[in-house]
C-alpha cells in the first residue's frame, strides 16, 4: 500500500474505496471490502483479454482452473492439497539443483532430451532429480522433465472443467516461460499471458472497487473514508516499517 501510494504520488486520504483479495485479504484492516481471489482474477483477466474462457492460475501454494463466460464465473477447480503443480514444487527443485527460480524456465527450454521424472510428489521428485543429476543427466534435461511432469499435472486438473479458447495463464507460474511452453504443448494451442501476471488479481480487485464506489455515490463514500482513516492510522503506526511479506 505504502509503495503504491508513493509510486502514484497519491495520499491515503485520496483513495475512495479499497478491495482486498488473496489469502491475506482478511488481515487488511483498512480495506472496505474483501473479495475472493477467484472473482478478482477473473475480473482482472477479463479486462485485459475479454475473449478468455479459461484461466489457469499457478500460485505459490495452489493452482486453480477458472472457467469464464461473458465475464462471469462458470466453473472452478483447485488444487491446494498437494505441492505438485504449484510454485512450491519449482522452488524446491530450483533449490536442490542450485538454479535461480527465475532461470529454471529459460534453462528448461535448452534441453534436447527431457529427463523422465516419474514422481509427482515434490519430496520424491526432489530425490529423483538428485539421482538423475548423479547419473550425469544435465540440469537442463532434468528441468525440462520437471516442467513436463507439472504441466501434465496442471493440465489434467484443469481439463476436468473442459479447457476452452482463449486460455490465459496467471500467477507466478506465468512468469516461468518453460512452464508456459510445456502447458501450451499439452493444451495444443497457444495461451495468453498478461504482461504483469502477478497483479491480475489486484487489478480485478481495483476494478471491482471502482464499480462499488460508483454505485455507492460520493456521500456514502465520505462516511466510509472517515471510518477507514481511524483504522489506517493505528495500522500505519504499528507497522512503521513494512516487513517483507506483510503486504500479500
Amino acid at each position: 500500500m505504502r509503495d503504491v501510494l508513493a509510486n502514484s504520488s497519491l495520499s491515503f486520504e485520496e483513495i475512495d474505496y479499497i478491495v482486498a483479495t488473496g489469502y491475506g485479504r482478511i488481515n487488511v484492516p483498512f480495506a472496505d471490502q474483501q473479495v475472493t481471489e477467484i472473482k478478482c482474477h477473473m475480473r482482472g483477466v477479463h479486462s485485459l483479454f475479454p475473449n478468455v474462457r479459461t484461466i489457469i492460475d499457478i500460485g505459490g501454494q495452489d493452482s486453480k482452473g477458472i472457467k469464464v463466460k461473458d465475464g462471469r464465473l462458470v466453473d472452478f477447480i483447485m488444487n491446494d492439497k498437494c505441492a505438485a503443480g504449484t510454485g512450491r514444487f519449482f522452488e524446491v527443485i530450483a533449490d536442490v539443483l542450485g538454479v535461480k527460480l527465475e532461470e529454471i524456465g529459460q534453462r528448461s527450454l535448452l534441453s534436447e532430451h527431457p529427463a523422465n521424472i516419474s514422481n509427482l510428489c515434490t519430496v520424491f521428485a526432489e530425490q529423483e532429480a538428485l539421482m538423475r543429476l548423479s547419473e550425469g543427466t544435465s540440469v537442463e534435461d532434468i528441468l525440462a522433465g520437471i516442467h513436463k511432469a507439472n504441466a501434465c499435472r496442471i493440465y489434467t486438473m484443469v481439463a476436468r472443467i473442459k479447457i476452452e479458447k482463449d486460455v490465459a495463464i496467471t500467477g507466478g507460474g506465468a512468469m516461468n516461460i518453460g512452464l508456459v511452453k510445456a502447458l501450451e504443448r499439452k493444451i495444443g494451442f497457444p495461451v495468453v499471458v498478461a504482461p504483469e501476471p502477478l497483479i491480475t488479481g489486484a487489478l480485478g480487485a481495483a476494478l471491482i472497487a471502482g464499480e462499488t464506489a460508483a454505485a455507492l455515490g460520493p456521500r456514502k463514500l465520505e462516511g466510509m473514508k472517515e471510518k477507514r482513516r481511524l483504522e489506517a492510522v493505528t495500522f500505519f503506526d504499528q507497522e512503521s516499517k513494512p516487513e517483507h511479506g506483510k503486504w500479500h
Partner: protein
Amino acid sequence: MEYVVGLDIGSSFSKAVILGDGSLLAYGVSPTSGNFSTAADLVLGKAIQKAKLSMADLTLIGACGLGVPFISRPFTKIAELSCHSRGAHYFMPTVRTLIEVGNQSTRVMKTTSKGKVTDYVVSDKCAVGSGRILQIIAKVLKVDIEQLGQLSEKSTGPAKFTTNCAVFLETEAISRIAEGTPKEDIIAGLHRTLASKIGAIIHRLKIEADCMMTGGAALDGGLVAMMEKEIGQSIRVPEQPLITGAIGAALIASEKAAS
C-alpha cells in the same frame, strides 16, 4: 554349515544379514547415502565382520530393494514383497498382516501361515504415506529421528495439521514452532496425520490379526502407538524391524538353490 546372505538395499538404509543353516547369525545396517554399490559392499562387510566369517565362507546371496541392480557381487534377485512377508514370518509365524513403512513407500501385505503373500496394497505416490516425512520433520524440529517416539508420547494435545502434503506439512510445522507450540505436540500431531494416512491404505485390505509393523518407521514408537489406535489392533514390532526384507531374501534364495 551353509552361510547364506540376505541384502536389502533401500533408498535410505542398506541391510545385510547372514544366516547359518537358516538361523540369524549376524546383521548390519548402514545408511545408503546415495551410492547403492558402495553401500551394499559396506553393509555386507559389516555383517561378515560381526559373524567372524570371511567372504569365501559365503555360499549364496539373495537380494532385494531399490538398489539391487547396483550390487557388484553375484546374487539371486528375490521379489521384494515375498522377502518382507517371509522375513516377518521368520520372526513371528502368526503374522497375517504386515505393514512395512519405508522411506519411499508403505506396503501392506496379507500373509499366510507359511509366510506367503496373498494380497497387498502399495502406496508410493506421496511422501505423507511413507516414513520420509518423519525424517523431514525431525530435521525441521532439530531432533534425532530416534527421539520422535518418546517425545510424541509426552504430548498433552497433539497439534492439528490442515494438510496432507509433506511439503505443506513442513511449512505448517515451521509456523507451529513460530507460534510456540511445543515440539512434543507437533510430533504427536504429525504422527496422527501419518497414522490416518497409512490407516487409509491399510483399510483397503481386510486385515487380520496378528499385525506386524516393519521398516524404518516401525522404530518410531509414537507412530506405532497412533497406528494401533487408528486400526484398532495391537501391532507387534520385531526387535530389529529394518532387516525383515534381508532375512526373507536369504531364506528364499537358499530354498531356490536347494530345489
